[in-house]
């Protein structure tokens, strides 16, 4: 009888019309979120002013001398809007990477950082700050370091998982865990040797995640990358579904997963690397969003990827707004906030018996 209950509650909103409606609702919500979020901030600006600035910058409508330059224009167009767009891109990327990573390692506990990416990023960031080759990389040296750290480690994980046999989800997880601890050890070693307090502080803050560094130069690269990667995974929904069935079953269904798994890993590592590059480490979103969507709409990736992309984007936009306003005149690192909101939500899912994390009743 308990089984029946799960049945009713898990994936209650599975019908196709509901799914299409939901996509439209979320799209609308995303647009509204952007438009609302841009009016919220520590400096009090009137709504009319904000929209006139955006209108001027986007369509050259209105009075350029009033809205094309000056304090209001700077705040809206160079501070608030980039942050919101970046939040959207990063939220989308992390949520989608989370779904993909859970499929790759066939484990509902996986998040985008699971395969050594987080410790790789920390190592890269620490290296950039402490060893001081950062100056060679110019502007966002920490980000570049972290990006390379994350990407290189995720490649290494794949290589290690393939030594002495074909990689599979278990081997990837084990390789990820092993390389993760190597990276942490190296990070600690650098911190210990360098003895640079200011540097440690920089690393720590950076690892808490922040969208404050948003710049249009970065966004024009990152947003298209995230969108293209998301679209790519939508077209590969069938193979993602098969990842969950395992290698043997997939071969009998005509797909050899080996190459797909590596391709997906590289693409999601790029997504996470880009997110890390411009926003540091933002945990939990890549774990929470996929689970919430799965609980409501089921596991089919054809629906999950677009829904997660939209939900992740909206979630991070509002999380960032909360970061800006929760403490007056100051800003909370977004990683902290997301974890503070995310962990209770996750625990709620955990204690709700009807959601088996895809694992059914057990």
């Amino acid at each position, binding site marked *: 009888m308990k089984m029946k209950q*799960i049945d009713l509650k898990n994936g209650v909103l599975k019908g196709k019309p509901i799914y299409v409606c939901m996509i439209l609702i979320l799209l609308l919500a995303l647009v509204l979120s952007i438009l609302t979020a841009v009016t919220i901030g520590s400096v009090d600006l009137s709504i009319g002013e904000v929209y006139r600035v955006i209108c001027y910058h986007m369509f050259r409508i209105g009075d350029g001398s009033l809205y094309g330059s000056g304090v209001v224009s700077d705040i809206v167009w160079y501070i608030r809007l980039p942050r919101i767009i970046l939040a959207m891109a990063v939220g989308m990327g992390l949520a989608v990477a989370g779904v993909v990573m859970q499929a790759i390692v066939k484990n509902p506990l996986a998040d985008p950082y699971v395969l050594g990416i987080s410790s790789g990023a920390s190592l890269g960031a620490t290296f950039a700050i402490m060893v001081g080759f950062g100056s060679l990389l110019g502007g966002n040296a920490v980000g570049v370091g972290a990006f390379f750290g994350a990407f290189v480690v995720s490649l290494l994980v794949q290589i290690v998982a393939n030594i002495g046999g074909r990689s599979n989800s278990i081997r990837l997880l084990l390789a990820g865990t092993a390389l993760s601890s190597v990276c942490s050890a190296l990070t600690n070693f650098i911190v210990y040797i360098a003895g640079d307090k200011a540097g440690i502080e920089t690393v720590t803050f950076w690892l808490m995640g922040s969208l404050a560094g948003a710049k249009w130069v970065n966004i024009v690269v990152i947003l298209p990358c995230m969108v293209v990667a998301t679209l790519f995974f939508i*077209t590969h929904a069938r193979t993602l579904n098969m990842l969950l069935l395992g290698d043997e079953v997939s071969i*009998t*269904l*005509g797909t050899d997963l080996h190459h797909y798994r590596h391709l997906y890993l590289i693409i999601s590592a790029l997504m996470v690397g880009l997110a890390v590059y411009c926003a540091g480490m933002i945990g939990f979103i890549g774990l929470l969003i996929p689970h919430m969507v799965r609980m409501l709409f089921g596991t089919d990736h054809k629906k999950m990827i677009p829904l997660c992309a939209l939900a992740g984007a909206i979630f991070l936009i509002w999380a960032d707004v909360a970061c800006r306003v929760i403490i007056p005149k100051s800003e909370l690192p977004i990683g902290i906030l997301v974890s503070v909101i995310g962990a209770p939500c996750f625990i709620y899912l955990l204690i709700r018996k009807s959601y088996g994390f895809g694992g*059914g009743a057990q």
Partner: protein
Amino acid sequence: MEIATKDVKVNLGGTPILKGINTHIKNKEFVGIIGPNGCGKSTFLKTVYRVLKPDNGCIYISNQPLEEMTYKETAKKMAVVSQHNYYNFDFTVREMVLMGRSPYKKNMQRDTKEDYDIVDECLEKVGMSSYINRVFSSLSGGEQQRIILARALAQKTESMILDEPTNHLDIKYQLQILDTVKDLGITVISAFHDLNIAAMYCDKIYALQAGEVVSYGTPQEVITTELIRNLYEVESSVNRNEDGILHVIFHPTRSKGESR
């Protein structure tokens, strides 16, 4: 569709498991593989359905060597129902069966009305139509196995491999699944533990022992007291009832086998 294997050898971890298997399965034949645990039944089937690569020899489907075909091509010719599948994520029954259509799909391609019709039709065949919106992991073992069978049916193949799919199912479900497969009238290769059931469904039987074919023929020819003693080290009597159905009755080793 014909399936043939020529001198197939497989080593697993340095141990030879299959030591040169030659088989020839004719079109629309229901062929059983019997043998004790560890004789290589499952390894042999896995090699045929390409999860394992033979170290030597070749497998032919309609005279075409398997290694010259893509996985998609073989999945259109050969469907597999294997041992109990456990999945860590929830799919609905519809989504599960729909995956049987994937050999016919490219990554970008959408699922068409025809695919959904095939899903309905296959669920109908296994008698699970009313379960279409249920979550797969919430079904019982017997129900799940029938859904997996429906997924295999959705592949629309001319042959099917059963890798002991009915192993821990109640006898009712075992017979149900085998009946469904038998009624398809396609080429079937199936591994069997239960000799009585093997005798009921098979046209031909291969008996394997330590990675070699030790006997081949119709159930009447293969399933004999001597073979059972050889293969399983168990005494038995093999009778035929008036319908011509073979019955194997096992005798406890202690009481009879030793006193003789």
